[in-house]
């Protein structure tokens, strides 16, 4: 029997996922949070979990080297991969928002400069609104951009809003909600349908039960 490969991003999403998998009977003996290993195997069930960078999870799944993966909606939206987004796992909840310095007003006749780590999400959002923008792609501390005059607004993930507040920024628009999703390779879903189906329905029952509780 071939292995089922699961791509996970090290950190909170992975821990939560391991928790869920354990509850449906898929345990990785050699996993602990301190370990620096990147591959974990359950040889009886022929399931293998690999740690990759968060943004790379959709790539591993799209290319089929991983049969499924767990990734935040934010990375999935940014990756624009051809995958099945089969399930909302209900954890890792936050949202995509547009934020600006308190009291910001849009000026007519000028393109908005948007600083973000998520250029595709930002471009998609503004093109739906029919507005032309300039993207300034950054890799971190996006909140600084409007303060330093690098951009007018930012598009970023907002969890509690604390970082925004402390930097004197406020949300001016919400884009969409984010949570962890179970994504599946489109081919594996068909060629390994039975085993993947079992895992998916196990997880679905579990998540439904939790949300009901």
């Amino acid at each position, binding site marked *: 029997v*071939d292995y089922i490969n699961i791509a996970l991003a090290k950190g909170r999403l992975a821990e939560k996922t391991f928790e869920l998998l354990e509850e449906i009977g898929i345990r990785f003996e050699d996993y602990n949070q301190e370990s620096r290993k990147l591959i974990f195997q359950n040889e009886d069930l022929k399931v293998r979990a690999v740690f990759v960078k968060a943004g790379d999870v959709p790539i591993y799944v799209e*290319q*089929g080297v991983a049969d499924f993966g767990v990734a935040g909606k934010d990375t999935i939206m940014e990756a624009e991969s051809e995958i099945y987004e089969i399930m909302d796992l209900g954890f890792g909840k936050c949202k995509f928002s547009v934020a600006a310095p308190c009291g910001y007003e849009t000026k007519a006749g000028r393109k908005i400069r948007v600083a973000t780590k998520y250029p595709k999400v930002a471009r998609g959002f503004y093109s739906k609104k029919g507005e032309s923008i300039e993207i300034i792609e950054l890799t971190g501390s996006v909140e600084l951009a409007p303060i330093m005059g690098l951009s007018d607004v930012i598009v970023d993930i907002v969890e509690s809003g604390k970082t925004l507040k402390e930097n004197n920024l406020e949300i001016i628009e919400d884009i969409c909600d984010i949570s962890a999703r179970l994504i599946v390779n489109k081919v594996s879903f068909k*060629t390994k349908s039975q085993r993947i189906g079992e895992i998916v329905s196990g997880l679905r029952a579990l998540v439904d039960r939790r949300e009901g509780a």
Partner: protein
Amino acid sequence: VGDGVLDVRYFIPEGVDDIHYDEYEIKENLISKMKSLYKSYGYRQVLTPTFEYYDMFSSIEGTISRDEMFKFIDGSGKILVLRPDATVPIARMVASNYRKNNGYLKFCYVTNVFRTCNSKNGYKKEFIQAGAEYFGNKTPEGDGEIIALAVESLKKFGIKDFKIDIGQAGFFKGILRELNLAEEFENQVKKLIENKNFAELNNVIADLNITDELKNTLFKIPYLYGEPENVIEEAMEIVLNNEMEKALNNLKKVYEILKDYGFEKYVSVDLGLINHLDYYTGIVFKGYVSNHGKEVLSGGRYDNLTKQYGYYMPATGFGLNIDELMEVVNMYEINNNSVGTDFLILYSEENRQEAFSLAYELRDKGYIVECDTSGDIVRHIKNAESRNVKEILRVADNGISVINVGDNGTFKMRTNQFLSSLNDREVVVPIH
């Protein structure tokens, strides 16, 4: 390296690759198998130009995004495109050249296709596509034959574990007719169904201003996949109109036809297969191979395509990605006969003529033969090993010495003896 400027003289661009002789041999072998398969079904081979006018592709509803096309400009300022797809030009060819034709048109092709794949990781920008197009037959028999050809193609590749996943575009179009959604919502719903995004689909449907019956139908679509007979039966229960029923009956007929081909074990159904609804008008399908994460073939019925070039002719067809299949062949280590030479003939100036005539005779019998002047035999053996030469023949005045490169065993023979012994020998068998 110093100033970081890439010296492009030594590099090839991303997304394209050299094909080395061993891989080329396998590839060519597979391609010729495909060609003779399609020919044996009466499909006649055609070839369209490597580049055509951009307007030809951009003015019609195809399956390739305009952004994915390689464009360049000719001397008069017109935009040209490197062939981004094989089917569209063949449909153009049919519509402009075969209007007086009275029968079916069955065409096959093996051709390279170019796509920019800008936003995609690790995809080839040039690859070889093989396929067949069947014009003029709008019955399920036409679709059945095309899918059967797709199945046979994969079998001919030596692949055992594969699936052809079949959908029917008309089924979902029938639902859309009832829904009457604004384009924005329609696209959103399509995308969610295509990605089997059950949770979000549920939320979006809940907010739509439509009847509960419609909501229920829409919600069930992404679940309609798997074993054909079960799925078709389940789908029958949520049929809302004539169009949907017709689509299902058509799908059922195609499945019955595939059963008579003996191919039912390769077939599954997915009514959530709704990509390119503007292009496909009936049956759609994709081919998957076990343990290979990307689709290897796709096809379907596209009755509206030739109409856009001013001449209606129903059509169905498929294309398979030879390069993707090469990956599969490598993964499963199918077809690993290596490239080699049967004989290396060594000669001195005095018997060069005799050597050349021996070479000629052997090549005529179908052997691969190389010639060189004799000299340092150790060097020749090393060379023979690295080039995968099976035997060295050293021509002398009184006959030839035969050296087996595998074990260096040597024996002497007269030339005519050698030639007549070839039929009984097992060491070297002509396979060419």
